[in-house]
């Protein structure tokens, strides 16, 4: 007679066999005392484990609940929570107004401030160079940049430093 393996008996005890296999095991256990004993031993093991669990059962320590809430209270908010706080209407509307104003007026203002001096500097530099070229004995003809700067006042130096830098990088005509 082919006995049933212990593994199969364990599956049978845990209701893990398909109905057809379950019926085969049941029929076998009724006719095979060796397998019935093995089955009883496995059932006893399950019973013992449950009894052991009951013996070891513990109440929930009250400190756990207190500690969980304490951890939650003491925790700093997430970035998401901070962002949501900022998105409340009281904060969001003024911030949105400032952003809209910056987007609307920003390019005009920034464009005027940055582009105008560069265009002016280029224009005056080229104009100045053309005049010096046409006047061979002009007072600034052949002057080195150092000489040029030493004869100028600090304000003049600052005003001309930009055109000089531009001239150094400008393409040759």
């Amino acid at each position, binding site marked *: 007679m082919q006995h049933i393996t212990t593994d199969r008996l364990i*599956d049978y005890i845990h209701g893990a066999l398909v109905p057809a296999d379950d019926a085969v095991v049941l029929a076998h256990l009724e006719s095979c005392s060796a397998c019935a004993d093995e089955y009883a031993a496995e059932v006893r093991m399950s019973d013992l484990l449950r009894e052991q669990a009951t013996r070891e059962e513990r109440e*929930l320590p009250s400190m756990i609940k207190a500690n969980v809430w304490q951890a939650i209270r003491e925790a700093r908010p997430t970035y998401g929570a901070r962002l949501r706080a900022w998105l409340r209407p009281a904060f969001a509307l003024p911030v949105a107004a400032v952003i809209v104003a910056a987007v609307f007026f920003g390019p005009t203002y920034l464009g005027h401030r940055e582009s105008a001096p560069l265009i002016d500097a280029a224009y005056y530099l080229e104009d100045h160079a053309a005049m010096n070229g046409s006047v061979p004995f002009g007072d600034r003809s052949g002057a080195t940049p150092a000489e040029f700067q030493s004869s100028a006042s600090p304000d003049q130096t600052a005003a001309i430093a930009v055109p000089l830098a531009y001239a150094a990088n400008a393409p040759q005509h």
Partner: protein
Amino acid sequence: MGAARKPLEPPTPEQTVFLERAIERYGKATFNFAYRLTRNEADARDLTQEAFIRVYRAWRSFVPGTSFLSWIYRIVTNLYRDELRRKKGRFQEEIPEDNAPQAFGGERPLAVTPIEDYVEGQLSESLARSLEMLSPDQRAVVVLADIEEYSYQEISEIMGCSIGTVRSRLHRARALLRRLLQQQRQQK
């Protein structure tokens, strides 16, 4: 374990009620499950505490109508696994060499039930010691299958493994338990 690793958001009223009820109804079961896994009260406390912080954090992901216990047992199992990895550098997966599936086709040896020879107190002590000697995964599957009485399918969902793995772990764990009990009886 114990302290929250990520920042937490201030509780909403619904979240507060959810957590309060979860601890009230399932705190004891969760703590006992954690104790059966860890076999240590201090570790079980830490594990339970951390599990409820996770519940608080992920409360929206709980699907109403499903088993809360299965959900929190999965959280506890994963936390325990993570904790073991952190402590030991890897999750122990001990499969004793002499613990192959039991198969016999001919004469069945006498059904040895060393259990019956024990005096009640000794048996409890021996069984507790034997449970400690199982690997964490084997212990978890025994607890879920024999104490919590979950099906293999449910255990596979809680432990995040296949039904085949659940089956083989349970077979090995129970065979090992019987062997360990027999060894301890012989030593006495």
